């Protein structure tokens, strides 16, 4: 048992590290710790490419960023959260600049901005096309300055200790030694990222397995808007590696197998040689991914061993622009797809990219469990509604990471009571459970087989288009899979760096989250943003201008309700792209 931590942050990505610095700056006397299953600089934020949105002048206004975000989210965003987000995003990006982030620059030394999908103004800050990489390393290196931040690198949190509606710490495994420890804490901030790995084809790193969502959900905190899964329109066909939207912002075209810019057929505007904001290739991701499915049905996609594709054409941009603005795109195409975008078309198809849903929080990241906070992709505040706009996530993790850190620090300062006995007993129970999982080695299926079955079930039922009967069947399949996963075979009995055990725990988390995705999708009998039902094709504001809120029932099944959306100044309207 270790000393009581004031603010224990689970996750060392952008949200977690920003929260850690916020706590350290708010009150240096507080004990703050970051627990992460990978070294912080390996967190998935490192993969973000295109940029981070924040109003920086140039004829732009906060209201316009709000409007783009809210209409992009098909009016499911909480508008008070969006207003707070948009107002604080600029100072967060400037803060990163003051910490050394190598943002790309204009000739006169100001930070440069680029267009991005669904944004009516140029407001996306970028560090070439490795924005997340630079942002994360800048943040990580800056945290090294705060030597009092305690780090638990390569520790995997398996459980939150919650007693009487209040969090008291976590149980975690030190991966290197297999040691299971209970870490008592006055507050816990979940910053564990998304859950793309629950799907077969994703841009997400191996570590994105929804752990934080499952941890909170199991302890009674509801998840919100889980049916909204973002497909990004341009993934490389075999690996799922993302080709950033910045490639289209710099002028890239999406063409079908006949070389035709097909988006013009889907109410996204008329093609122009130069990119037009909020139009064609710079439409929102949900609409672009849906257009792909229609192209496929019309037989206008090309076939590859890894499924149908369309093409991203960057050739007309020329080598110099590609090298200068999107060098990583070129590097990824060359090293992972054996082609050069300067002279070749890039085959792409929609790929699971981002979870709009997550742990239900208020504007300060507080969940319904006292002392438990969540921020970043694992949380749902919600600013993303039914469809996130590209480049809103990086500023989101900073704005709400900081807010959650400050709120947790405040809570820790005002709640100084000693830990209850439950901490010890829950820790012991968890230790025994983990030992059984590792030593028992069930006789059920292989972890990888169960995982694949889950992934294909989700893709089949909760993909770009959904329908009630397929979703209902998927709910049964997932329930069965959950039982079988209890008996999954673990071949590795070692306590040293046992990644098979971690894979099993991640599978359990993903199954839990998968069930909530399907349950929420089944419950929402309308089409909105990234959630498109073939059996309920219209948006239905009368019934569903509301968040889905999913609780875990005592028998472990998801139970879905609705929560009204907060509207401040923007009445729900039609989403218009490519025509003014």
């Amino acid at each position, binding site marked *: 048992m270790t000393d009581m931590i004031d603010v224990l942050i689970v996750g060392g990505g952008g949200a977690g590290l920003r929260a850690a610095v916020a706590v350290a700056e708010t009150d240096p006397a507080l004990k703050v710790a970051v627990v992460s299953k*990978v*070294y912080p*600089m*390996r*967190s*998935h934020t*490192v*993969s973000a490419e295109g940029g981070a949105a924040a109003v920086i002048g140039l004829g732009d206004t906060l209201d316009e960023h709000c409007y783009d975000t809210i209409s992009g989210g098909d009016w499911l965003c909480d508008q008070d959260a969006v207003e707070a987000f948009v107002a604080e995003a600029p*100072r967060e990006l*400037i803060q990163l*600049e*003051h*910490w*050394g982030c*190598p*943002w*790309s*620059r*204009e*000739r*006169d*030394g*100001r930070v440069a901005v680029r267009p991005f999908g669904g944004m009516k103004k140029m407001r996306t800050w970028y560090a070439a096309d*490795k924005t997340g*990489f*630079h942002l994360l*390393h800048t943040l990580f*290196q*800056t945290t*090294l*300055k705060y*030597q009092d931040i305690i780090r638990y*690198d390569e520790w995997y949190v398996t459980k939150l200790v919650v007693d009487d509606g209040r969090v008291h710490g976590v149980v975690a495994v030190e991966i*290197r030694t297999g040691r299971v420890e209970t870490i008592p804490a006055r507050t816990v901030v979940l910053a564990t990222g998304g859950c793309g790995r629950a799907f077969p084809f994703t841009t997400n*790193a*191996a570590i994105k397995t929804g752990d934080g969502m499952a941890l909170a959900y199991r302890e009674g905190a509801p998840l919100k808007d889980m049916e909204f899964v973002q497909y990004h329109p341009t993934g490389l066909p075999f*690996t799922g*590696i*993302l080709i950033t939207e910045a490639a289209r912002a710099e002028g890239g075209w999406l063409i079908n197998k006949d070389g035709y810019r097909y988006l013009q057929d889907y109410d996204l505007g008329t093609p122009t040689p130069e990119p037009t904001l909020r139009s064609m290739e710079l439409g929102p991701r949900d609409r672009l991914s849906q257009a792909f499915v229609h192209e496929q049905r019309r037989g206008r996609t090309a076939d590859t*061993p*890894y499924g149908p594709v369309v093409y991203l054409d960057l050739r007309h941009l020329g080598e110099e622009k590609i090298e200068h603005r999107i060098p990583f795109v070129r*590097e*990824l195409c060359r*090293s*992972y*797809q*054996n082609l050069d975008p300067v002279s070749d078309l890039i085959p792409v198809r929609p790929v699971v990219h981002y979870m709009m849903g997550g742990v239900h929080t208020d504007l300060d990241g507080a969940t319904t469990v006292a002392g438990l906070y969540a921020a970043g992709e694992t949380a749902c505040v919600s600013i993303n509604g039914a469809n996130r706009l590209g480049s809103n996530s990086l500023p989101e993790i900073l704005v709400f990471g900081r807010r959650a850190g400050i709120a947790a620090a405040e809570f820790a300062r005002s709640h100084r009571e000693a830990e209850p006995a439950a901490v010890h007993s829950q820790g012991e129970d968890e230790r025994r459970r983990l030992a059984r999982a590792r030593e028992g080695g069930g006789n059920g299926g*292989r*972890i*990888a087989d169960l995982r694949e079955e889950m992934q294909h079930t989700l893709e089949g039922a909760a993909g770009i288009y959904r329908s009630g009967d397929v979703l209902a069947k998927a709910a049964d399949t997932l329930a069965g899979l959950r039982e079988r996963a209890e008996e999954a*075979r*673990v*071949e*590795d009995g*070692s306590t*040293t*760096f*046992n*990644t*098979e055990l971690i894979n099993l725990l991640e599978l359990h988390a993903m199954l839990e989250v998968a069930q909530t995705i399907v349950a929420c999708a089944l419950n929402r009998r309308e089409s909105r943003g990234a959630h498109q039902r073939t059996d309920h094709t219209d948006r239905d504001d009368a019934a569903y201008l509301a968040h889905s809120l999913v609780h875990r029932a005592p028998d472990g099944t998801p139970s879905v309700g609705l929560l009204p959306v907060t509207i401040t100044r923007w009445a729900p309207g039609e989403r218009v792209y490519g025509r003014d």
Partner: protein
Amino acid sequence: MTDSAETPVIRMEVARYRPGEDAEPVFQAYDVPLMDDWAVLDGLTHIKDRLDGSLSFRWSCRMGVCGSCGMTVNGEARLTCGTFLTEYAPGPVRIEPLKGFPVIRDLVVDIDDFLAKLSSVRPWLVREGEEPPLTAEYAQTPEQLEAYKQYSMCINCLLCYSACPVYVLDPDFLGPAAIALAQRYNLDSRDMDDRFDVLNLEDAVWGCTFVGECTKVCPKHVDPAEAIQRYKVSAALRSVLPWSRR
């Protein structure tokens, strides 16, 4: 996609080491499909998923940016997610942990030494005086950005340490990536430090014998060897002209 009758296979000889069980590393051979678009890492995940769940290795992004998957492939330090298996056809191909680091298990090495070294070079922007309000950025022209940009591209994969003949003999040597990252800040027009106290040491820049292996293996073209040479020049200048910086 896998295991059809016609798919050729390649033999992967993988170093296994389980403390408490193996006295020393042993090689275990696995046959995996030799697919055109598979990286070495895909071969390893195939082994873990299909053949032997007990094999341990690190990976995450599978796009060459998280820095987790460095290993020794046929004797060379490589990022396994960015190295095609076909490069080693018809095989066999040997996979070992990164050399120069203590092995924790199988292909997983202990990198805590690097993290301590990274912290020691103050890898953050050092400024004097109060931080200005968060209403405006520090100006930096594209040329000023270019001056350090290359050194900011380091993904901490540690291939350079693994390849460095000095580090292998002298674990106290600060090493290529930590020095390159110190230079990343030294050359940043917004930074006001020169990290002389931690760089101008026998175990820091002066330990480098300019073999240049680090630059050769670096998958991100950081060129740590150049970073070190440039610092030697400015450190030498500084001892002649004590007031000059950089």
